């Protein structure tokens, strides 16, 4: 974090200089101070915090069913090899589809509601989860499976005590990809859908600021998005990744 401080200050300085040059209208390019003030105000009213919590809740609420489904599909493909090409084809077809493209269909099928955003996020994370877990299961060394056979592990034990811990590096890589995918999906779904939905996530927060032509507020929302991404990467992912690389280095 300390190493990032100097470039951060440099960007702020450059921003301030650009602002003072008067080249852009303050309506499209506010000063850093104005953005900070607006952020402080939104924090004080609690609007910003609620928006962040709303988006985070949607992401976490989508992660759980996606993980369960991805694990189940990967286990099915691993345990019964004849399923594997079918699930592969399905994932190859559906995975590249942008979640937003499904929005009208999802509304047609399931009606309006916050669940639409959840479904779009599930779509955006399920396939990266599945692809990574599947490749993790496939890379489990044969000698580990032999040890499991030798000790007569049950199907459940083989899954929980061997397949999952053995493919933890790939599962974690999937979580990491899923996390960034989920943010993109949730923000765009909220922006498109937010006006009629009940919710107000961070996407809706930014969109709302545009409606009221609150330019510093829009900047503030984007900066908050970047800061959350940075914090999760630095505080959570990097340390876990280091630990994984350390423990699994031999295999």
């Amino acid at each position, binding site marked *: 974090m300390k190493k990032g401080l100097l470039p951060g200050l440099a960007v702020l300085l450059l921003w301030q200089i650009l602002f003072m040059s008067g080249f852009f209208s303050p309506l499209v390019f506010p000063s850093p101070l104005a953005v900070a003030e607006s952020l402080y105000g939104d924090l004080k009213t609690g609007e910003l915090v609620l928006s962040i919590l709303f988006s985070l809740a949607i992401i976490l609420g989508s992660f759980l069913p996606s993980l369960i489904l991805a694990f189940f599909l990967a286990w099915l493909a691993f345990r019964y090899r004849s399923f594997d090409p079918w699930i592969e084809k399905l994932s190859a077809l559906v995975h590249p589809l942008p979640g937003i493209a499904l929005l009208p269909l999802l509304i047609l099928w399931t009606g309006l509601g916050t669940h639409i955003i959840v479904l779009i996020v599930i779509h955006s994370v399920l396939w990266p989860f599945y692809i990574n877990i599947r490749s993790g299961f496939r890379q489990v060394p044969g000698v580990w499976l032999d040890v499991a056979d*030798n*000790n007569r592990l049950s199907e459940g034990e083989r899954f*929980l005590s061997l397949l999952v811990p053995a493919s933890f590096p790939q599962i974690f890589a999937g979580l990491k990809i899923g996390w960034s995918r989920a943010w993109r999906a949730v923000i765009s779904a909220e922006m498109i859908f937010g006006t009629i939905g009940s919710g107000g996530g961070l996407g809706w927060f930014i969109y709302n600021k545009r409606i009221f032509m609150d330019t510093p507020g829009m900047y503030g929302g984007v900066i908050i998005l970047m800061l959350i991404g940075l914090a999760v990467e630095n505080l959570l992912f990097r340390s876990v990744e280091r630990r994984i690389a350390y423990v699994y280095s031999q295999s």
Partner: protein
Amino acid sequence: MSILKADSLHFAYDLDKGNHKVLEDFSLDIESGEFLAVIGPSGCGKSTLLRLLSGFIRPGSGKISLNGSEVLRPERAGQMIFQDFNQLFPWLTVEQNILFPRYRSFFSLGKKAVDPPDRMRVDEILELTGLTGFRKYRPHQLSGGLKQRTALARALFADPQILFLDEPFGSLDAPSRVELQNLLLRVWKEKKRTVLFVTHDISEALFLADRLLVFESRSGRFKVHSNSLSRPRDRHSGPFRERKLELYSLIDPD
């Protein structure tokens, strides 16, 4: 008393060019408590034989029985130790790896879950295999020799009647190999288990085993020789070298 019995086994690999016969009408009786080494040139089917006898693969025809009951898949009573250093689980410590045969549930590997008698057994096995100081280490922190010791300890914790060893010391440097050979003999004497040991190293087989099953070339023909050298054996003694040369000429008649 015979513990493991193979009765007229046939085995062939299906290849593109037709099938490649590995074993034809193979029969063998392994006595309880004996140390049998299987030697032969690479590609002769030693490892295949071991995987057949341990139940990892099934013969085309014929029957294998352990203590009178037919072997249809790997048994806990017959523990396999592999050549691969990577046979330990990297996410578990040495101690947890050893406990794995009985405490495999991912959630019950905490210390409290282990029964006191099993804890004592682990301590004893750690002591016997010289791993007491390494119980909290993870596999990536161990040398090859320590990894193979851990694999041996894990197999012992499963309380097997027979140990199947597939060139377990094949990838070790010479000093560790000798160390591990001595350790294996100690374990064998102390635990009185049956050992089936595959190797391509003739002097290793001669140093360790009571009987030697020698594959003569790749034809699948084999002969069982008894090893009359008295224990403890000296690799540099005259009789040892003489037997070694004899066996060499059997395997490679040219």
